[in-house]
């Protein structure tokens, strides 16, 4: 029996996989937002299950800042820079999507032996979803040439880790949780600012072309 939490995080993982398949920034950002909303939902459900009120707080923060704020910020950036579509790096998007689906399956295999705390029911699904998100995020980072795409990939990785933490532990300390969130946000902001600077200096935001510094 799959619990609600697991369902939510699995949905998030699947959405992330779907995200790989498209190079449209807008669609990507939308899918990311929805995915993060699912995760926020999972957080609420977990809070409910554990009776932990602070998790609700975090869920709200995630819902507002990460699920809505960050996509909007990136969307606005892309609008300003007038880029809408990634070019794609290394492998083509459909192939990448299939790869991430394979990795989704693989993550179930990899995580089957991870011990879960007694209180967590069916922790396996959560762990698999988390690891799958992690993989997907890496795939995104590897297959996107635009700076925004890379930020997005990083955010997906971060989501995966969050999902893992959510499902595999009985709640991280609040202070740590907030610190992580803050760092992530500041990081994304810094990256966003940098994207503008890259556009200004190079007149593109294709990071695959940033290869001046090498041996």
């Amino acid at each position: 029996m799959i619990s609600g939490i697991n369902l939510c995080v699995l949905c998030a993982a699947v959405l992330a996989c779907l995200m790989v398949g498209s190079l449209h920034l807008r669609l990507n950002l939308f899918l990311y937002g929805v995915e993060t909303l699912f995760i926020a939902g999972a957080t609420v459900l977990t809070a409910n299950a554990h009776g932990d009120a602070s998790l609700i707080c975090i869920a709200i923060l995630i819902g507002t800042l990460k699920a809505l704020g960050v996509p909007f910020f990136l969307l606005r950036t892309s609008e300003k820079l007038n880029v809408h579509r990634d070019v794609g790096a290394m492998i083509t998007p459909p192939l990448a999507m299939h790869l991430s689906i394979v990795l989704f399956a693989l993550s179930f295999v990899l995580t089957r032996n991870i011990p879960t705390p007694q209180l967590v029911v069916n922790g396996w699904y959560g762990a698999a979803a988390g690891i799958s998100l992690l993989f997907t995020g890496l795939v995104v980072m590897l297959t996107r040439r635009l700076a925004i795409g890379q930020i997005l990939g990083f955010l997906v990785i971060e989501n995966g880790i969050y999902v893992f933490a959510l499902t595999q532990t009985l709640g991280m300390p609040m202070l740590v949780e907030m610190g992580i969130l803050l760092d992530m946000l500041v990081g994304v902001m810094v990256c966003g600012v940098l994207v503008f600077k890259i556009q200004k200096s190079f007149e593109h935001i294709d990071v695959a072309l940033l290869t001046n510094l090498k041996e």
Partner: protein
Amino acid sequence: MNSQVVFLESLFLLVSAAVAAFALSHKSQVSDKAMSYLLCAIASFAIAASFLGGSQIVGYETSAPLMLGVFPLTFLLDGLSRFFLLLLSAILFAIGLFSPGYLSHLKGKISGGQYWIAFFLLALSMFGVVLSADAITFIVMWEVMSLSSAVLVASDHTHQSVQKSALIYLGASRTASGLLCGGFLWMHSLTGSWNFASWNFAQHQAIFPALLILLGFCIKSGVWPFHIWLPYAYPSAPATVTAVMSGFMSKIPIYGLIRILIQGGLSSPEIINLMFVLGAISSFWGVLFALVQNDLKRLLAYSSIENIGLILLSLAISLKARAASLPLIADVAMVAAIFHCLNHGAIKSLLFLAAGSVDAMAHSRDLHRLGGLAKRMPWTMACFFIGAFSICSIPPLNGFASKWLLYQSLFKSTLLFGSYLDRGLFLTAICLLSAVGALAIAVFVKAMGVVFLGMSRSHTAEHAVEASPGMLCAQVLLAACCAGMGVFAPSLVSQITKIASSSTRPITTAPIDFALPIPLLAATLFATALVIYLLFLQSSKVRTFKTWDCGFGPLTAKTQASSDSFAQPLARIFRPFLKYETKATISGRDRRHFPEQINVEVKIVSILESRVYLPCLAVISYLARGLAKLQAGSIHLYLVYVCSTLIILLALGTVL
């Protein structure tokens, strides 16, 4: 408080003071004279001090403020180290006398401050290496020695060739110290101690550390096939530096071998045989290549390789004899090795100083541009000749005395060893040594003849003048040492036996007898020559005329045999080793009878360098370039590295 400890401390203080004085004042104009006299003072102080304590064995350990981090500096002064100190101080003294005159010729080429800081550091570190009693003090002093000498080699660093030499030297030194470090660490993990006194190489596991240490020392002293750096470094350095490098620094590895491996009871036959073979080959190889050199200092450098080979050979014989429980032969060979260190130290520093004088006065070291200096620099010539005779081991000079001991040990080994294989080995070595002796004569006759005799081959050589009194003084001093040590070899040998048996762990057992009545022979020879001269030549009427020119008109310097042509018949015989090729092109309309231009080029390829070392470097370079390709600048690639590292780590995690 022991007088020796006072000596040690004051020595270090003195030298460090000199270094510090320089470090502070390196910008102001440095007086070479003042520094040279300071060097002389330190050296004479050290000479006095090494005579002072007799045969006492003194240990000394620094305490809290002055330490190498967590390790104390430990020193040991016994007969052996006192002996090497004496040699070092004597050489330094001579160099101190030589320096002011010599350095004034290098004004503007080298920076005085840098030179003297490095020189004093070198002196300090060489004292330190000889005195050190544990591995850490040893390696620290050793590295300081390598670095400071590399700086000295690069004194005249505006020349590309000098830079290259210094770098090759630095690389070789670092390789040597890397091997030494490996050996020391290995011994430490076997014995749990850094102190040389508690290292025992007789045990079976110690064979690999012993090998590492041996190789390290071989590289540093320039034993075949690790001698590549030596012909680069010696010619590039100023003569004073080369004198101390060849005269003493090349003996330090030998000292290390005695101090660490031999006193540590090395008995593994594999290592000893390796020493034997390396010593034999390098003595032959060195002198063979010396023959075809056209740079005076390079020639001397190759001759150093030969002599280090001889010393190594003596040590190996001594060890073999000890292992075969023939203590008499072991003692003779050991004394031969130590005595040859002393002799080669004196001779080679003399020769390099003389070569330095020639370089400074005739402005060239190239044998093709020298000649006829006999009339212009008679004193330098006399000193150089004594050194050259001595290094050819011609009686009654000192080179012969030690070589005779070596021959004796080989002869007795051939006589007394049990196994036929060993006997054959020793016999081959005797044969090889006699060839080496004859080749050495060829080498140095060439050097003496081409540099000093005949006509001058260049304008600069023609206008050379005799070196300054200070420079001559240093050379005469060393030449007198060479002659004196040769004539009084019997009593010197008994002194050396005493020293060797009075060190911490005696390396000889019984006093040995130097059976040759050299003083008598020398006196007879001298008297006979004098009588012949007085009887025949003194009263003969002498008419001066030009050299016979076959009636073709005046001879020029070009009609003389050059260094190449002198060596050619011999070089032809050893063509396979030398990769010796002469290429002559004659041009002109009727080129057989009326050549307009003749161009002869001699080419010698160092096989080791081109076939072994350069490919090794190429491999490193290839690896480095291959690795550098990883850093391709693509961020996607970098992320792939992260992912793949993760996979590897996870795999490792499951395995472990």
